[in-house]
């Protein structure tokens, strides 16, 4: 028996250390299943002291490790490097403190995103970042990935909602980054940690900002007979200075899949695209913006603009959008999930080129995305058992990514780099830029034990 596992069992309880191959299968990948590797073991700490003890133990022996939440990530960020031990935080799922007076809450990393909003809903508050996986993903994972979601158009990403973090550094030391109710002094280590993809340490307590629930919410569903009409509508809403809470788009391929699935939302299947536009805030603001948005939709040839009449209808509009990725599972055994960002004024042009690229490679593409901030998800269904097809998918993906970068965009808006996008990093960053990132990592994790092999393409950067 592996002596490391034996000692880990001693450190925690035997039943909180998994090491049998059949037990480890679940932990081979995150939600992108084409990156896989079996961990050496999976441990389930239940307190920061246990996290620190495990980290110290592994670090002293030079054994790599990585934190994991719910495994819903979409970049292969939670795939273990060889010989890595996974520190699974799902059991650290307590909401420790809710402080309405200062609009903050303190949670453990394993708290499921939506549970926090549910816990504060009756008091009239919510936690804003809402990734589509919010019923499963953890706030610790959101911190690692700087997760977004439909409503970050108005409310910002995870980094805009985290006030402070208690972190176990990769050598086992526990430090507080950022404030715990007031500002912190010095460099913004909290901001640096958020989005570091599990490479700077493990957050064990997270102080988040709570927002007041907006008193009025209106959700619109507009459908268009051409993609261009929909994308021009998006660009114009933004250019008009309206800040919707969310502005989402789904194309015909996505609509068809959603409507054939359990997530059916009543989207018109003959439309080329639908937009979900949500406006929230004080009543007079919402009333005025709804009218302006309807005008813009009509001016661009929307066939119908429906305003959700009640909470049930609103939930249905959203169910289709939030279930879209799941619905795509019907189409093919595998799905290449893409995540790129472009300046939103370039949506019409870029989207039509994406269809052209897919067509060129004989592939389908289903677009479902956060149109309001230019965050595209052009997903390509494929069959991974067909190597020739996989090759075409990879080439098309790269071409799409290069297109987005050429238009002034980025290679990921919310999913992170992980393993999946690591080869794209040189498209947007120079060697010097990447070296600066490596230097930051060196400060947090001089020995490179915490989730190694992610984000920075080492091959390219021989010098460091």
């Amino acid at each position: 028996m592996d002596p490391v596992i034996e000692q880990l069992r001693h450190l925690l309880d035997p039943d909180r250390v998994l090491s049998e191959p059949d037990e480890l299968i679940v932990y081979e990948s995150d939600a992108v299943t084409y990156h896989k590797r079996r961990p050496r073991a999976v441990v389930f700490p239940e307190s920061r002291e246990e996290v620190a003890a495990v980290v110290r133990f592994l670090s002293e022996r030079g054994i790599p490790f990585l934190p994991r939440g719910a495994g819903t990530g979409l970049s292969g960020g939670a795939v273990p490097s060889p010989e890595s031990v996974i520190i699974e935080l799902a059991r650290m799922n307590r909401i420790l403190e809710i402080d309405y007076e200062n609009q903050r809450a303190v949670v453990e990393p394993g708290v499921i995103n939506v549970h926090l909003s549910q816990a504060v809903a009756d008091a009239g508050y919510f936690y804003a970042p809402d990734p589509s996986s919010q019923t499963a993903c953890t706030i610790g994972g959101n911190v690692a990935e700087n997760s977004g979601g439909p409503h970050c158009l108005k409310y910002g990403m995870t980094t805009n909602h985290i006030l402070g973090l208690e972190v176990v550094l990769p050598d086992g030391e526990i430090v507080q980054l950022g404030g715990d109710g007031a500002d912190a002094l010095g460099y913004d280590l909290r901001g640096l940690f958020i989005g570091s993809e599990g490479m700077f340490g493990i957050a064990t307590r997270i102080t988040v900002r709570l927002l007041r629930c907006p008193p009025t919410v209106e959700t619109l569903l507009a459908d268009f007979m051409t993609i261009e009409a929909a994308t021009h509508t998006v660009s114009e809403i933004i250019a008009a200075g309206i800040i919707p809470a969310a502005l989402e788009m789904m194309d015909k391929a996505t609509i068809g899949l959603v409507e054939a699935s359990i997530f059916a939302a009543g989207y018109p299947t003959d439309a080329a695209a639908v937009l979900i536009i949500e406006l929230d805030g004080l009543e007079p603001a919402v009333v005025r913006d709804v009218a302006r948005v309807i005008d813009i939709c009509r001016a661009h040839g929307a066939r119908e603009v429906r305003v959700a009449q009640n909470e049930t209808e609103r939930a249905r509009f959203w169910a289709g959008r939030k279930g879209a990725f799941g619905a795509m599972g019907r189409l093919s055994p595998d799905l290449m999930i893409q995540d790129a960002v472009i300046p939103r004024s370039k949506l019409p042009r870029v989207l039509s080129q994406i269809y052209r690229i897919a067509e060129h490679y004989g592939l389908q593409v289903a677009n479902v995305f956060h149109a309001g901030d230019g965050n595209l998800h052009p997903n390509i269904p494929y069959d991974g058992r067909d190597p020739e097809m996989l090759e075409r998918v990879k080439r098309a993906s790269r071409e799409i990514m290069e297109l987005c970068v050429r238009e002034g965009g980025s290679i990921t808006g919310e999913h992170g780099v992980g393993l999946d996008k690591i080869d794209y990093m040189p498209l947007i960053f120079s060697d010097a830029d990447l070296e600066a990132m490596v230097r930051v990592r060196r400060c947090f994790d001089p020995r490179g034990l915490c989730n190694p092999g992610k984000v920075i393409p080492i091959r390219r950067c021989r010098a460091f």
Partner: protein
Amino acid sequence: MYNELEAIVGKEWVRPGNATPEYTVDGVVPDVVLFPGSADEVAEVLRRAHEARWIVAPAGFGTGLDLGNPLAKVDVVISTRRLDRVLEHEPADLTVSVEAGCSLATFNEIIGEHGQWLPLNPPRPEQATLGAIAAVEDFGSLRLGFGLTRDYVIGLTIVQADGTIIKSGGRVVKNVAGYDLNKLFVGSHGTLGIITQLNFKLRPRPEVDSTYALSGGALARLEEAARELVRSELAPVALNLLPAGTVRRCWPSSPVDGSVLLVRFMDLEPVVQYQADQLQQRVARLGLDVSTVGAETAMALWRAIDDFPVDGGDVTVRMSVPRSEAFSMVGLIERTLSAADDVQVIACVGDGTIWVSASYEDTEFTRSRLVASLKALRRECERRRGHLILYRAPRAVKRELDVWGEVGATAGLMRALKQQFDPHGILNPGRFVAGI
């Protein structure tokens, strides 16, 4: 040194420090002040400084050079003020690229033509460059409604201490590619690199800007009002408490006696009106008076608040506490500083920032009494998980009281970052926290 620098930036852009008093760094006269015309020139200068171990203080217009612990000496001040172009403004995207030397006021004027703005209001926006605002993460009373510089920076160009130019972030509003180095440089006080270009996301400029003054009650009553407001659906962009003494200084024409809670709304006209009505109703229940502050008066008043303090006190401090502690701190401040002259206090009770300014008769006795009071206040802030920084103070005070206070267990991480990014310690050495 002179000749070398002239060869890089051109003869007319190299000035002796004693001929440019506005670039004196907290009492230290630099050897030379440079005005490079491009990021490449900044890079060339830093490469040379890195080799020669020249001590460099980055600057914009030089108005923020007193902030921080004093430097022992300064060889070169590098001002970015010639880098003042708005490079690419995409109104339809609400994004912009701008050089670091552009002032906030000029910048907002230019993009204002498209009905957009960067909603930050640090002191003296005419003399504050965007680079400097980002470097010190300066802010004003609008923080409650609009947040901080870190919330708007989507990309940066930085010349590192060794002269290498890097970029962080990008030009799109949503981006998680790589570590978020924007956050490292924003608020790093020029100790890690020199920002030469910034990409921001912008906001639509609000239609209407209205201010209301709540008065007629004791502090406890105003506290109740503030608490009710932040709990309500209303969304004030600023919520500032001015104790009676400060009202007399900042708002000499004030029609009311006693302390005032200022409430500011910015939005579409009907939305501001709606909030004003709601405010009236809620406040009436508490037995307080609400008066609308006329547009011109409001503008002057906010200006006085944001350029705090009026007529520059000798010492200005900024505190940060959880907002639930803000009112109790104000009472404590007034008691603790009762012996100082001209104490002015402005409490941003929505976000927990408190500005305090005081003057003292210049004797060792009064100075040490003031320092003792500030130390006591710092302890009180720290007890509330917050801090107190000396925003502006004479060197004599700084000698007795660290500008920043203790950062605790993260000092090691911060020093490691400084070591990685500025191994020779040429950029503002010692000016920031933990001896950085």
